[in-house]
């Protein structure tokens, strides 16, 4: 029995899972960004071995350059995912999804937004003025923020914990200059962690997508249209 036929006999998934996989479909395309994370991690480890001082100013530039350089790969994998699993276009304009767990209420978002604003103020104003490092680590912050937001409606406990833990790590790492003046260590931890999280979460998300929607090499259903 082919994988497609096997899946056809699977029972329908819970509404929470259906909602989550549709809403976060694009973010779950883990192989789009996992290689960039791996290269970043290798770059940081290599930098530590060869010229540690270079990391202080080289790490943010290197991370940004990697994002740009890997964009063709991102585009290729995005197309590959869509040719296998189909296309989803997000809804335009405001409005909360229907029939979903009520995690995006004011009670959740107000503390989250307040925390994010305090955090941004801390790394934008306080840390650059009180430490010798000018880098405010926004590249580290945003993936952390996205992971924390995605952890709230995640339908499975292990998914929720994985996203929340990795998100919290990325959230806390930029605060390292508050407890150490070793800027090589700060940059190595921040960008090394960013690389490790992109790689780890990317592979994890890809595995999640494959275990839910079927293998990615199964392109028999590209023209599964009626």
């Amino acid at each position, binding site marked *: 029995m082919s994988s497609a036929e096997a*899946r056809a006999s699977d029972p329908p998934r819970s509404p929470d899972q259906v909602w989550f996989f549709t809403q976060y479909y694009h973010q779950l395309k883990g192989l789009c960004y996992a290689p960039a994370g791996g290269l970043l991690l290798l770059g940081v480890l290599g930098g530590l071995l060869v010229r540690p001082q270079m990391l202080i100013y080289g790490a943010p530039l290197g991370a940004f350059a990697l994002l740009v350089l890997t964009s063709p790969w991102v585009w290729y994998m995005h197309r590959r995912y869509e040719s296998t699993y*189909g296309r989803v276009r997000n*809804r335009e304009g405001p409005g909360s999804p229907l029939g979903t767990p009520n995690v995006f209420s004011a009670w959740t978002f107000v503390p989250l937004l307040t925390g994010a604003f305090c955090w941004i103020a801390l790394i934008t104003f306080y840390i650059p003025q009180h430490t010798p490092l000018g880098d405010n680590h926004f590249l580290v912050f945003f993936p952390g923020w996205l992971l924390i937001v995605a952890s709230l409606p995640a339908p499975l406990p292990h998914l929720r914990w994985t996203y929340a833990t990795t998100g919290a790590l990325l959230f806390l790492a930029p605060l390292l200059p508050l407890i150490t003046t070793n800027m090589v260590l700060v940059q190595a931890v921040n960008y090394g962690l960013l690389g490790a999280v992109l790689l780890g979460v990317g592979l994890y998300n890809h595995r999640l997508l494959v275990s839910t929607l079927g293998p990615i090499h199964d392109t028999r259903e590209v023209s599964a249209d009626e």
Partner: protein
Amino acid sequence: MSDSDSDVPFEHLAELDKLIHEPARLSILTALSSCGQADFTFLQRLTGLTRGNLSSHLSRLEEASLVDVDKSFEDKTPVTTVSLSENGRRTIARYWDDLQALRDEADRWDADDVESTG
């Protein structure tokens, strides 16, 4: 739904919209309610339905004006895109409200109610 004390919550199950309550159609509508539009391949992968089953469910939903189905060609390949209609959005929102009301009633319901109804 009425709120009478003598009512047993499970009686209201019969009042749920059966067109939506069917698990496969509920999956399709839930997926469509969380995005702008999705294509046939994605819905098939997500719901695990066979091509024929999904097509049949979509036809029923389209007949009830709950979804809009758009068929086109891209590079000579047929592409079917499905989105929730305004009516569909309202209907599934009402369905979730009804289901929530049912859950709230069931939470309030206790053994005393069984004796009073028995």
